[in-house]
């Protein structure tokens, strides 16, 4: 019973950790039992971190076992499937096993008792591209079964040039839970097949399976399975001491590889990727047997007659699971997950989710009432136990005094909420609750700040737009007025035009004459230094092009929001203005031209400065929000 596997020689302990009573023997003595198909299944659609899957079925639809009933919504999401064949009787918010206790979207299926599979075709993953495999896993609803339910397809294919170490998390460090232990004992060969697949997909150079020393049988089974499987990569079972929370991904990576994954960095970037052993098993079932994730092994223990592990369909009502294990009177509540990180279920009608590794019927004998919370005396026991090497007593003070900024400064967000601090606290302070409170307050504040920033930006843009429209209106009015005066004083304009036209003609003639002269000079004598014709046309070209490029943005900007007739009019006005300017430029003396050029340049510079100032202002607004 209490036999221990020999701890591997090369491990790299993490700081802290606790060793609560294991309570694993109660549920690890019997083989995994197959749970009969329940009459009704309540399948939650929020089965992974990220977006809730989008329902594909409606009330009254008949579904087959393995049929997709909800598809992944976006990248961070995974599909959900019908665990058995039957009829959809409800789609909508129902209570789900989630700490919030809030109802979420579920699909309720009434089983037809036939358990008929949908037609399945084996996926030829060996000849498929990485992207296709990832999509396939997403559509098979493969998520991390260790509890975090992170969509697995996101963890495959990140490494460009192969991975150093693939870590298989089989530590199962929480007390009471034995589902991974039993899975490895009974299905080690299939787990190893899964390891082979993931190793291949990630091109991992070595595989390390981390198992706590309180599971000698599982360690033995895995060792034998690895030996029997034809593997062409180094793989080893590493037995680690039983010390909660060695099953935390970062803690296990440290234990096995001595790599301390820095805060905010993904382990993949350091050449390590960690998968829960049950997830590996489902990847194998999905890729080799075209089986979506519709069932899982769950430990039912505590105050029940037959504690043990059950292979249950996702969506099986908790009440059915408890009845299967023989619910005993006197249970005060049911814990979903382990005693350290789990939470009390809001009821027993809700359906099992993919995250559900354990259900503990809680009674007074197993979980004595916690004594009253006493003041913190700063004894520092929590800091000794903290695997993240935080100073929980300080974070507690900061949280209690709502000094959240300070808590954040002291790395509150590196807390993994393992509960080791609360476990050792001699004053019975529920430290993790305070940390969750602080975190949620910070998140709420950030959200509120973002909303306020957005509102302010919108308001400022509105002000800007109103001002611009006002200005444009004024400009239009001025243009109209100008047009009117032009029409009334037609003679004056005509005279001016004639004069201008004459000037243009004269200028053009001069240019043509020059050109002819140049050509004549060139043909007349080869010894004469040739005159580059471009040199002549450049000033003209500049004069012609520059105003256009200067006016264009203004014209476009003012034209965009205007109505059609006005727009046309304004465009005409702009064109006229440009033509006039062009003519004037051509008629100008070089000095005048230079002056005009300088003025233009100054205008451009001013506009650029304005734009830069605006940009800087925007950046300044955005920064604090980030």
């Amino acid at each position, binding site marked *: 019973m209490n036999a221990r596997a020999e701890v591997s020689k090369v491990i790299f302990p993490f700081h802290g950790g606790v060793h609560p009573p294991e309570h694993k023997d109660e549920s690890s003595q019997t083989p995994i039992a197959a749970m009969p198909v329940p009459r009704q299944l309540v399948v939650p659609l929020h089965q992974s971190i990220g977006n809730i899957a989008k329902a594909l079925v409606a009330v009254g639809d008949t579904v087959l076992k393995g049929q997709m009933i909800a598809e992944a919504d976006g990248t961070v999401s995974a599909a959900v499937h019908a665990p058995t064949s039957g009829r959809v009787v409800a789609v909508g918010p129902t209570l789900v096993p989630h700490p919030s206790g809030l109802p979420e979207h579920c699909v309720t299926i009434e089983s037809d008792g036939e358990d008929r599979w949908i037609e399945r075709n084996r996926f030829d993953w060996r000849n498929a591209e990485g992207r296709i495999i990832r999509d396939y896993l997403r559509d098979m609803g493969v998520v991390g079964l260790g509890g975090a339910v992170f969509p697995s397809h996101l963890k495959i294919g990140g490494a460009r040039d192969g991975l150093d170490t693939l870590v298989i998390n089989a530590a199962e460090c929480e007390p009471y839970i034995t589902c991974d232990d039993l899975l490895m004992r009974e299905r080690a060969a299939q787990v190893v097949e899964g390891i082979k697949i993931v190793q291949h997909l990630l091109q991992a150079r070595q595989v390390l399976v981390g198992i706590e020393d309180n599971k000698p049988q599982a360690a033995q089974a895995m060792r034998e399975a690895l030996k029997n499987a034809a593997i062409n990569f180094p793989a080893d079972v590493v037995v680690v001491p039983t010390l909660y929370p060695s099953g935390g991904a970062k803690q296990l990576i440290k234990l096995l590889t001595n790599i*301390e994954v*820095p805060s905010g*960095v993904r382990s993949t970037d350091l050449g390590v990727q960690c998968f829960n052993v049950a997830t590996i098993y489902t990847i194998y079932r999905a890729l080799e047997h075209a089986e979506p994730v519709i069932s899982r092994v769950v430990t039912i223990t505590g105050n029940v007659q037959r504690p043990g592990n059950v292979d249950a369909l996702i969506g099986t009502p908790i009440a059915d699971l408890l009845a299967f294990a023989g619910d005993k009177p006197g249970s005060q509540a049911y814990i979903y997950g382990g005693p350290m990180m789990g939470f009390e279920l809001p009821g027993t009608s809700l359906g099992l989710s993919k995250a559900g590794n354990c259900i503990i019927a809680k009674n007074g004998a197993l979980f004595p009432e916690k004594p009253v919370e006493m003041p913190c005396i*700063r004894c*520092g026991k929590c800091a000794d136990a903290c695997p993240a*090497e*935080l*100073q929980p*007593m300080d974070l507690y003070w900061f949280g209690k005094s709502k000094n959240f900024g300070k808590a954040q400064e002291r*790395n509150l967000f590196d807390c993994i909420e393992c509960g080791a601090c609360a476990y050792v606290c001699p004053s019975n302070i529920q430290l993790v609750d305070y940390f969750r409170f602080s975190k949620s307050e910070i998140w709420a504040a950030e959200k509120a700040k973002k909303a306020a920033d957005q509102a302010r930006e919108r308001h400022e843009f509105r002000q800007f737009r109103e001002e611009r429209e006002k200005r444009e209106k004024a400009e239009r009015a001025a243009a109209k007025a100008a047009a009117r005066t032009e029409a009334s004083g037609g003679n004056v304009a005509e005279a001016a035009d004639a004069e201008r036209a004459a000037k243009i003609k004269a200028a053009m003639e001069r240019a043509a004459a020059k050109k002819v002269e140049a050509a004549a000079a060139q043909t007349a004598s080869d010894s004469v230094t040739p005159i580059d014709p471009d040199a002549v046309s450049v000033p003209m070209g500049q004069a012609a092009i520059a105003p256009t490029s200067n006016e264009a943005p203004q014209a476009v900007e003012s034209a965009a929001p205007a109505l059609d007739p006005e727009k046309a009019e304004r465009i005409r006005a702009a064109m006229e203005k440009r033509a006039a300017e062009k003519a004037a430029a051509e008629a100008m003396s070089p000095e005048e031209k230079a002056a005009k050029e300088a003025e233009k340049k100054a205008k451009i510079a001013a506009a650029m400065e304005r734009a830069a100032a605006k940009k800087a202002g925007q950046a300044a607004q955005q920064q604090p929000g980030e």
Partner: protein
Amino acid sequence: MLKVAAALIPGIATYTYFFGVGVLVQIGLATVAALATEAFCLRLRNYPIKPFVTDGSAIVTAWLMALSFPPLAPWWMITLAAIMSIALAKHMYGGLGQNTFNPAMVGFAIMIVSFPAQMSHWAAPLGLAPQSLDAAAQLQWIFTGHLPAGLNFDAVASATPLDTVKTQLMQHTNMLTILHEKLFGGIGGIGTEWITAAYLLGGLYLLQQKLIPWIVPVTFLAVLGGMAGIFWLVDPQHYTSPLFHWFSGAAMLGAFFIVTDPVTSPTTPLGRMIFAGLIGLLTYLIRVFGGYPDGVAFAVLILNLAAPFIDQYTQPSVFGHKNRKKAGAKA
């Protein structure tokens, strides 16, 4: 907390053996006064009385203070000190876990500053003085201030070893001559050396139970001993040995029971080391160069003030934040 009280029992027993029943009277008075004050304050503050009165913290405070008092001090002094320490140093700061200063040391310090004469009236260890007081006479003295006819307090009184060394040195007596007085035993004073050894025993029990961090007593004693050692090696005529300093006065009591108070000391490992080391340094300086024979109480109070500051600057690095710069450079 009750384990801490239990760890004090060998010290109390030895103390009583050498100095008589007066020790127990002081402890009893302190305990009653402390608990009564605690209950009263909790009531005033609308706190549940039972969980706090039974947590043992007031008892430990009372005992530590009583053990630093002269065994024959008048009853009202220890009572007043206990009330002060609980009401003033503890509850006025917000109660358990909130106090800045070590309550026991506050009570002691107030008394030694206010009543220096009474606080230095020590009786000689049993059998050393020309006359000694029996239990009845001790009780009579503590509660009434009178002695049975024919007895004079001066006849039973004696300075403490630390005090003796200090005053005699001021009269330019040679250290060897001083230490040859019959007040002194092999290491410290007769009796005192055994009492401090008993505290050490209790302290080792606390260490074994992992109730106190080992770094605190070790650093404190190392710095105290180190300072004493340097001066002693340079001039043994005028300075006493590290052993004398360890086994005199409140060194052992302080090392294991007072400096280790978690509420008033830093929480980071490095911070605790700095805290304990500075207390050791200050204790030595006050003992040798200061105006009081012993320096533990004042050294502790001064460093209590600095504890939050020390914490601020000794924050250990968090998992995943080590080599931050290196990781940043790589990325």
